[in-house]
């Protein structure tokens, strides 16, 4: 008798989500936000979740899509593990969710992209679209590309291209130290930096190239001592989350004077860790920051702060807003919420974001948009109006690279369904 009861309970637990799935599908488009919501990168995951909630609420507030269909964000935790991500993707798909969004961890994105491709092959009636807002390993839109994956952030090579073009003009740079996380993205950054610098400024010496375990190092003091002893005047790092904040904190404590060229300073505590010591010494390459000018950047920043007054972080990911807006537009264009039709509508989609006109490449599903190189400076009311994390420090644009100049050749050859 007891066994029967347990068995019934199990069945109920598995069936419940399936039963509820059917009834929702009519009124809402559910987007599974699959992200590391526990562990070393939980804070970054939570920032992304807030961005998605705000973006979805904005679309819903203006009446949703197709005259009343609303967006709903459903969070799932992948624990920054590719295996775990594939499991929770299965859960999301079983619940009838047809859109997933992820960004933190290219290793996770590669696993998810693979899982989505396999799922769609086996279930052509229940295809799923993968909206990637931050996983920038170039492989995702090159060798390992997949028709159902759309990336809204610029990839590591595009960003490194912009960064090295800019650095090549700075004659003061003699010695560069590379420090990155030991996984697909960090390795891609290190490799791109090496090859591009060698081509553009062969006189620059690369005095160090470190890969450290992802999210495991709590004390970066030994790495900082190494950077110091190498005599580097500049550091290039793709680190994000606590891996960046702790690196920077250790650097500041030891009085490291090198300039930092980063991908992700604007997010998750790094600016707080730099503090005043970082002013003028920290640069980042991004698709957006709150001081890019134009009509909307400041407004969007203020909206985020008004919506989440209790947190110290700020609007950072333009790719999240872009992915939701693009999805809304594509659904309107396809006149359907079916991912099969929406995916076709997303290709070559042209739309406006804060930085101007952007479009989705059809050959590898990479969004083409302007890039900005900016320096962390004291907020001054003029070209650095808004600060970050309430530190009194904000980003000032040094260079804007037009979308067409960021386009890279691709090796992608995906099969269209």
């Amino acid at each position, binding site marked *: 008798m007891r066994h029967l009861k347990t068995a019934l309970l199990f069945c109920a637990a598995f069936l419940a989500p399936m039963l509820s799935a059917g009834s929702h599908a009519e009124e809402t488009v559910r987007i599974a936000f699959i992200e590391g*919501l*526990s*562990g*070393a990168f*939980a*804070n970054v995951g*939570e920032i992304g979740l807030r961005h998605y909630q705000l973006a979805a609420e904005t679309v819903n507030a203006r009446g949703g899509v197709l005259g009343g269909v609303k967006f709903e964000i459903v969070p799932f935790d992948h624990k920054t593990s590719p295996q775990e991500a594939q499991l929770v993707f299965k859960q999301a798909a079983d619940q009838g969710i047809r859109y997933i969004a992820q960004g933190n961890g290219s290793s996770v994105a590669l696993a998810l992209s693979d899982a989505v491709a396999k799922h769609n092959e086996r279930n052509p009636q229940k295809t799923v679209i993968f909206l990637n807002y931050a996983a920038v390993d170039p492989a995702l839109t090159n060798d390992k590309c997949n028709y159902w994956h759309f990336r809204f952030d610029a990839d590591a090579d595009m960003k490194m291209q912009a960064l090295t073009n800019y650095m090549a003009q700075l004659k003061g740079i003699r010695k560069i130290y590379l420090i990155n996380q*030991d996984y697909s993205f960090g390795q891609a950054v290190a490799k791109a930096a090496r090859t591009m610098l060698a081509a553009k400024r062969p006189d620059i010496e690369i005095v*160090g190239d*470190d*890969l450290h*375990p992802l999210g*495991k190092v*709590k*004390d970066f*003091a*030994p*790495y900082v*001592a*190494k950077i*110091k*002893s190498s005599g580097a005047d500049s550091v290039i790092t793709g680190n994000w989350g*606590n891996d960046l904040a*702790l690196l920077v904190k250790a650097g500041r*404590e*030891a*009085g490291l004077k090198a300039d930092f060229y980063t991908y992700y300073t604007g997010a998750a505590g790094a600016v707080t860790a730099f503090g005043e010591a970082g002013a003028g010494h920290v640069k980042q390459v991004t698709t957006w920051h709150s001081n890019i000018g134009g009509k909307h950047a400041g407004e969007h920043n203020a909206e985020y702060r008004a919506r989440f007054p209790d947190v*110290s972080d700020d609007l950072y990911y333009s790719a999240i807003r872009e992915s939701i807006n693009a999805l809304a537009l594509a659904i309107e264009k396809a006149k359907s919420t079916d991912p099969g039709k929406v995916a076709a509508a997303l290709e070559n989609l042209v739309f406006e974001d804060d930085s101007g006109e952007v479009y989705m490449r059809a050959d590898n599903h990479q969004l083409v948009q302007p890039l900005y190189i900016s320096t962390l400076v004291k907020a001054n009311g003029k070209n650095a109006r808004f600060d970050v994390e309430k530190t009194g420090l904000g980003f000032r644009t040094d260079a804007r690279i037009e979308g067409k100049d960021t386009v890279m050749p691709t090796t992608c050859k995906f099969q269209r369904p």
Partner: protein
Amino acid sequence: MEFFLITLLNSLSYGLLLFMLSSGLTLIFSMMGVLNFAHASFYMLGAYFAYQTGLYIGFWPALFLAPVLVGVLGAATERFGLRTVHKFGHVAELLFTFGLAYVVEEVVHLLWGRAPVDYRIPAELDFTLFTLYTTQYPAYRGFMMLVSVGMLLALYLLLTRTRIGLVIQASLSHPDMVQALGHNVPRVFMLVFAGGTALAGLAGVIGGNAFITEPGMATAVGSIVFVVVVFGGMGSLGGAFLASLIIGALQTFSVAFDYSMLDAWARLGIDVSPNSLWYGFWSITISQTGPVLPYLLMVLMLIVRPRGLMGTREG
């Protein structure tokens, strides 16, 4: 030279923190024969308690209050948990502490969330202690070392120079005799457990803001603490001290070396190109293997000398 000295200082401060953590574990093991899997959880609780109480009473009172709170929790764990489980043998005790570690982690998730909390170094200690050549040495690291050394000294004096220390040492080897002499041995056990966890709590208070206070911090140090205790010899305080410093130095200095097997081959005159067999393996540098080295050391130690550096029991 600058690099060597700074790295030496860094390894010392890290090693001493490791010692603070492992001293409690080894003390508990030598007393009660219990391998406390939840030890690192008490370290985490120390950090969170200090963060939470520090919001109201400031860092300095929290520095004392948080370890006391952790010690009280430790005492309760022993009195109402371990003592009951004890009669079912060591496996039950082991499983109990193992489960406890998970419970603590989930409770921390519930109370403080999954993201790191903003537990900062107090402003009074946020300055540069001295400048060595061109590198600044933060005062807080000096403070960490001071606390660890002070604790080591206090512990040594307590165990060798006081009455309670004598009773503890006696109950270590001859519990029945001590009991017969009229001492309350179970209470001594409880005190030792409380003391051991309070030490872990203290390590959490000063380690939490030096590094980062998040729910994963227990798992991050949990395994390394065991390496220290096994390597140093189960139950040996001196061994734990030595092992902490060795492992601290090993992890800190390994970061510095970019040598890989490729260099060894090159020295032998063998050219290995990226297309060669096992290139990925040959090109792994010592700095990349840094995180694994302590475990390798532990395995080697268990093979060569199972009782550890200064251990007295057979492993």
